[in-house]
């Protein structure tokens, strides 16, 4: 097992080095002016972080993301519970959710500004359109799919109504909801970046578009790289937090 781990690590490190080497070789060729080599991009990234306002842009993007996430989680939980608990809501809202899920929400960008304004509220709205449905779906499946043996055990111990909810249904649904929220973080950052690039240039989107407009390709790649890394790190952090918070689930797991 440890040997396999070491091999995996070596392979990954080798792959990363090879990638950087190819990029360096490819980017150093003056014909490929659009993709400057890492030796240009990383200094540009450092410069952006220390004096170029990249950190401030990141903070702005994160603010948009977190406001959108909080609103989505709030309404997502309400709708999700309603769909799970009331047959009426399930029969009528479920197909609507499926239809809405099929819709490429980016289409709405040309008209959203009139309803929400082009600034912060508009961006938060787009984040919500990306995140809300995931939370609704994960909440309703979580509440609906409580393992039957858990329910039966709870009932056998004389739990009813509110007690059953507190001791069995909610903890069991929590796993689904938490993984829905992790997915929501990943989708939310996509929504935030899309909004910042397409609705009106702002924060990280503005940083990238500005570099593109001035053809500062090293700064452009630095901004893109930073944005990609940010999305990845946020999702990884959400996953880590999810596992950490739900650790009690595996403690008593005998199977």
């Amino acid at each position, binding site marked *: 097992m440890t040997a396999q781990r070491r091999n995996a690590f070596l392979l990954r490190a080798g792959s990363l080095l090879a990638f950087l080497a190819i990029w360096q070789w490819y980017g150093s060729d003056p014909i490929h002016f659009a993709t400057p080599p890492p030796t240009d991009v990383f200094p540009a990234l450092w410069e952006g972080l220390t004096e170029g306002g990249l950190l401030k842009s990141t903070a702005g993007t994160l603010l948009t993301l977190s406001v959108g996430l909080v609103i989505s989680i709030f309404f997502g939980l309400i709708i999700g519970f309603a769909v799970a608990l009331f047959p009426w809501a399930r029969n009528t809202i479920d197909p*609507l959710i499926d239809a809405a899920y*099929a819709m*490429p929400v980016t289409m709405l960008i040309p*008209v959203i500004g009139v309803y929400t304004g082009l600034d912060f509220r508009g961006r938060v709205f787009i984040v919500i359109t990306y995140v809300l449905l995931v939370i609704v779906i994960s909440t309703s499946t979580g509440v609906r799919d409580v393992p039957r043996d858990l329910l039966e055990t709870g009932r056998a111990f004389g739990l009813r109504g509110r007690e059953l909810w507190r001791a069995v249904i909610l903890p069991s649904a929590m796993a689904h909801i938490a993984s829905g929220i992790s997915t929501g973080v990943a989708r939310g*950052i996509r929504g935030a970046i899309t909004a910042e*690039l*397409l609705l009106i240039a702002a924060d990280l989107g503005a940083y990238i578009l500005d*570099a593109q407009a001035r053809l500062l390709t090293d700064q452009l790649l630095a901004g893109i790289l930073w944005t*990609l890394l940010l999305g990845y790190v946020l*999702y990884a952090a959400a996953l880590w937090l999810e596992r950490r918070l739900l650790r009690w689930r595996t403690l008593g797991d005998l199977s």
Partner: protein
Amino acid sequence: MTTVVEPAKAAKPRRRATDNKWVQRAIVWGALLVIYELLAIALGDFYLATIEDIVGGFIQVVEDGRLKTVGESLEHLLVGFALAAAVGIPTGVAMGRSFIVDSVVGMYVRGLFVTSLAALLPLLIILFGVGFKFQVAVVFLFSVFFVIVNAAAGARDVPRNLIRTGEAFCVSPLRRFTSIVLPSSLPYIVVGLRLAIANAYTGMVLAELWVGVGTGGILKNMGQNRDLPKFFAMVVLITALAAFSSHLIRVLERRLMPWADEVRA
């Protein structure tokens, strides 16, 4: 006769008409449409378009020959999606079956799978210009990772005892691959393709909105001119196309792979 039947009927719990889900849907969806219609009338045509206007807008969209533009966009979508499937399925299956491939390419795939690909668009424009290649590249990028990740999951989950059985019967590696690994990972691949086509639509719209051509360009124009009846008609049309494409893949799966549900269960 009737006296015998009546009590039996009464003993059953009474079924109300509102228990039928289609009755419920008719009531709730009807109410939503009415609310929307009232809202549209109250707010005026700068904010929302009434339903009859949207229907009229749809007819106009058809008369203006916009469907041809949508068709051209769909061509880009199909090319990008086919490329994504052609690259993604072998990569994913290789990732699922081989530890080395998974270690070497897995991190890029998983990284790009969760992160915000829209940030790559400015770079893609510099690399590919604003034409056909750019749009295909965006559709490809938006769909390929869903294909890879799901194909890898499928190839990883091939029941080990099946492979052992194959080995025990001295089935050649190639034969094992075509008759054990592929059939049992195909259902996962199909799930990947369905997620991918939904995202391919997002990619298509995004790319076209960005450079203002094709379907996205039409949407952008209609939005800027506040031509909402046509705009909403287009939105409904494209949503229907996206839902239909995903449904089509599912129907094909049921036809071609009747064992799929068994594998998934």
